């Protein structure tokens, strides 16, 4: 009954989440509008482009009722550009599409609900679920791509470059955490979580007593009104 899985998302769960991304389709058949739990689907009328969730697009595609329009960033030219940027930036991932503006007081929208895989998405930024959406589309709708093999190869190249950054980033891990990973993808988080989290947690456990002492000292200084600069003097005094 209890979920027999370790904490953190499995690749299958990430794939499930990526299917909530909106994609653009060109319907081949009419279909009346639908009231779904997650919002309404407008009536489908060929050949009018419509944005629908990926899971529904895959269902329609499988039954040959629609074609899927690959998002602009999944075109060979955009991927080649992104690959160049990824190769040039050795420290960080290329920047993701910015979060959409949200009305004051309302819940901010974030992936997979941020529309970043539709036909009018940005061509220069890899969205959070880039790898998953790319793989799923190449698998289920490769005939909607002009050069599926080229796209597949570019995706693999980008993945290699990013994986090597993820591996190189291991050196900056320390007990406090505080690692910035802007632009990281959903599947990359799922893959790296166990290792990155494990390293940080174990470093923390190793340094736990030292950290505790420092915490107490800082609390003491806070009470006595010492400033941050005073803390260093205090250290020196101790050594003398």
């Amino acid at each position, binding site marked *: 009954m209890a979920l027999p899985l370790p904490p953190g*998302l499995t690749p299958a*769960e990430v794939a499930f989440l990526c299917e909530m991304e909106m994609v653009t389709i060109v319907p081949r058949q009419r279909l009346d509008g639908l009231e779904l739990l997650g919002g309404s689907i407008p009536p489908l009328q060929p050949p009018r482009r419509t944005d629908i969730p990926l899971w529904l697009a895959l269902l329609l595609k499988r039954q040959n009722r629609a074609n899927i329009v690959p998002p602009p960033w999944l075109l060979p030219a955009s991927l080649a550009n992104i690959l160049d940027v990824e190769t040039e930036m050795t420290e960080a991932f290329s920047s993701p599409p910015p979060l959409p*503006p*949200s009305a004051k007081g*309302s819940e901010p929208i*974030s992936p997979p609900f941020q529309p970043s895989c539709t036909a009018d998405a940005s061509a220069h930024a890899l969205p959070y679920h880039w790898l998953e959406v790319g793989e799923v589309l190449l698998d289920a709708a490769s005939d909607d791509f002009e050069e599926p093999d080229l796209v597949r190869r570019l995706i693999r190249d980008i993945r290699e470059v990013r994986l090597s950054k993820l591996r190189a980033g291991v050196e900056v891990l320390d007990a406090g955490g505080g690692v*910035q*990973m802007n632009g990281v993808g959903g599947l990359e988080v799922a893959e790296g979580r166990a290792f990155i989290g494990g390293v940080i947690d174990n470093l923390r456990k190793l340094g736990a007593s030292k950290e505790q002492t420092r915490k107490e000292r800082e609390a003491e200084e806070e009470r006595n009104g010492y400033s941050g600069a005073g803390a260093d003097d205090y250290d020196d005094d101790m050594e003398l």
Partner: protein
Amino acid sequence: MDIDISDILASVSPPSVSPSLLDLQSLTRAFIAERVAPSLLPYPSALMTRVLARIAAQIELVEHETGKVDPRANFRLVVLQTEVERWKYLVRALLRARIAKLADYPLFYLEDAEVSGRLSAAERQYLGARQGLLGEHYAVAFLGQFPAGLRRLDDASGGVRMVDRPDEEAAVFVRCLRDIGPVRVEGTDTEADMRRGDVWVMRWSVVREWWENGDVELI
């Protein structure tokens, strides 16, 4: 420059998002958060009541329409059912992830009033019954043969507590949904300037407060 532009956009065109989609987003976030957070999170009771009622209504609609044998309506039903199954999967996975945490640290979630407040009524009942059965079984199987003073499962004498607790300091991945500003991890040199849209690996104990306010989401 980019930031200035997005600020202007924010003031001009707040996007209109349907409440149904917001519910789906909240449910998805609750599921992800429960799967990756080290300790049990508060039960999202308002959201769950709403979601369960809507799933039930949708199932009723599907059952009602199954009677009609129009082949055209047939595919619509397939779509409706597929979506209902996706929602049911999310709900089920969320609840199962919670039960897994309860099973890992049963005594911890039972004894502390603040912590047990995160459980729903059904979960509290389940955990109480489970722990009752387990305690009885332990007593019959082996605890009964111990000296009376050594039979407790929640002994705290000698400064060491027997009750295991989840690691609240574990590292988690978060995405900032609003600007937070500089953050310092006490007792370490770690400092972070957390801005909207950033992804950070931080200690759960450090970011928990912002998660409760909805300023960050777990990923």
